[in-house]
């Protein structure tokens, strides 16, 4: 058979696709511009706008507060970076513990179930209060008193319960035939989990896990309630001394700058999975 030479028809087809692509892009741009202008107009023409502009969009205040808020934000990032791996470990262990069927280990399974029930039910901010003020009050040796550390413990407890459920749903979504195939090769329950079920389950739960991470990034601000000088706390200090709320806006901006790349990364992973399935 002869080699492929692009035909007239195909060249024309590609021209049509390109021009349609350009048209799609320009329609998207135009409608976005219209939408943004409309929203801006509605907000700015509201009766309270001058007052809001003064208290939330004061550029001088913004410049003044930004360095402190930014240095506080570095603490948020530290809390996040330490809490996240801990959460993954706790979540995975709890999910595995809930899957144990050996009668002798029933207490472990029951404990794991109890843990997820309790910590998914209690609002994160309450967990932070209870851990932040309760743990040090025990006066036990070895209990940390550093506020950020206590915040990390609280976030780990709270998010660990959510992540455990995400992992468990992933494990349960793997078809029983996979377990049957592995067990019939002589692999133990543990080895089946480790080599067959978990590798597939983990891949499947990456998008919901990343979603939880995005949520965790901003929930590091809740730690402000027990006092460490992170971004929200720094903004509060500035706002309290000037009665201007622009520092909050600065903090919000920093959180957005952190979460948006994560959200796009999640989208990217989801799109890649879709492509691999050939849909």
């Amino acid at each position, binding site marked *: *058979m002869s080699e492929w030479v692009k035909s007239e028809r195909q060249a024309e087809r590609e021209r049509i696709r390109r021009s349609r692509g350009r048209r799609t892009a320009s329609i998207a741009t135009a409608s976005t511009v219209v939408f943004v202008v409309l929203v801006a107009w509605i907000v700015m023409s509201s009766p309270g706008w001058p007052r809001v502009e003064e208290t939330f969009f004061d550029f001088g205040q913004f410049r003044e507060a930004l360095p402190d808020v930014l240095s506080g934000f570095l603490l948020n990032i530290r809390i996040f970076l330490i809490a996240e791996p801990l959460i993954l470990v706790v979540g995975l262990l709890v999910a595995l513990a809930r899957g144990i069927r050996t009668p002798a280990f029933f207490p472990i399974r029951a404990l794991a179930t109890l843990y997820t029930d309790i910590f998914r039910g209690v609002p994160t901010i309450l967990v932070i209060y209870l851990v932040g003020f309760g743990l040090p009050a025990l006066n036990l040796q070895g209990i940390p008193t550093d506020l950020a550390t206590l915040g990390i413990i609280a976030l780990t407890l709270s998010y660990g319960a959510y992540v455990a459920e995400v992992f468990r749903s992933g494990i349960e979504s793997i078809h029983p035939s996979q377990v049957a195939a592995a067990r019939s090769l002589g692999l133990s329950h543990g080895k089946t989990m480790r080599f067959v079920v978990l590798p597939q389950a983990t891949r499947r739960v990456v998008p919901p896990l990343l979603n939880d991470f995005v949520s965790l990034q901003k929930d590091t601000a809740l730690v402000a309630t027990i006092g460490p000088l992170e971004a929200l706390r720094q903004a509060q200090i500035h706002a309290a001394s000037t009665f201007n709320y622009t520092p909050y806006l600065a903090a919000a901006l920093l959180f957005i700058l952190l979460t948006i790349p994560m959200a796009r990364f999640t989208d990217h992973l989801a799109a890649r999975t879709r492509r691999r399935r050939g849909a």
Partner: protein
Amino acid sequence: MSVLSIDGVWKFFGGHGVLRGIDLDVQPHEVVSLIGASGSGKSTLLRCVNLLETVDDGTIHLDGEEITDPRVNVDDVRKRLGIVFQAFNLFPHMTVLDNVTLAPRQVHRVTRGEAEEQAHDLLVRFGLADKARAYPDQLSGGQQQRVAIIRALATQPRLMLLDEVTSALDPELVIEVLGIIRELKESGMTMILTTHEMGFCRDISDTVCFLDGGVLLEKGPADKIFTEPENARTREFLRSVLESGRF
């Protein structure tokens, strides 16, 4: 006029030519079989006709209308085609009746009563009337595939595409599905099918096409292809099929 005409169709996957200039015409009421080894391009050709894949060159016309034009409405084209997959792809959360009536109701705007009446007639005709309220996982593979065929039929397609519809079935279940396809042929349905069932293929096809490496090497009446193939590759393929006992 041909129902379908495929002219010089090319398709590449990652630089590899999966279809290399395919030409094929299908006349009304004609049954065309595509045979060839795995990877010869049979399924890709069906997916191109159904617009599940975009061709990289060449044209496909359905009833004289070019469906490979980028401006064409893909959904409008697919409304006129019925496709049945190797793995059935029934919707597991719906009963048999809902599987069959979904497209007539949602796409073709038929009322529920009318759609269910038509679906019921089809189920009776193909011996599945008692399964209307069953869910797919309560059915055998052969029954599931028959439901999938009925689901495709329910929209009264101009052309049916059957992609290895018996490959996932036990031999004793193959018979019942092949029976349906034979009945479809008798009712005058135009069909393109890919298959490994050579005996059935010879029996039901008006035209058999042998594909090899993305090229349509040989095409002709079923009897001729199976008794005196002209191409050496066709002969080789048929001999290997014969030796594996699939004839």
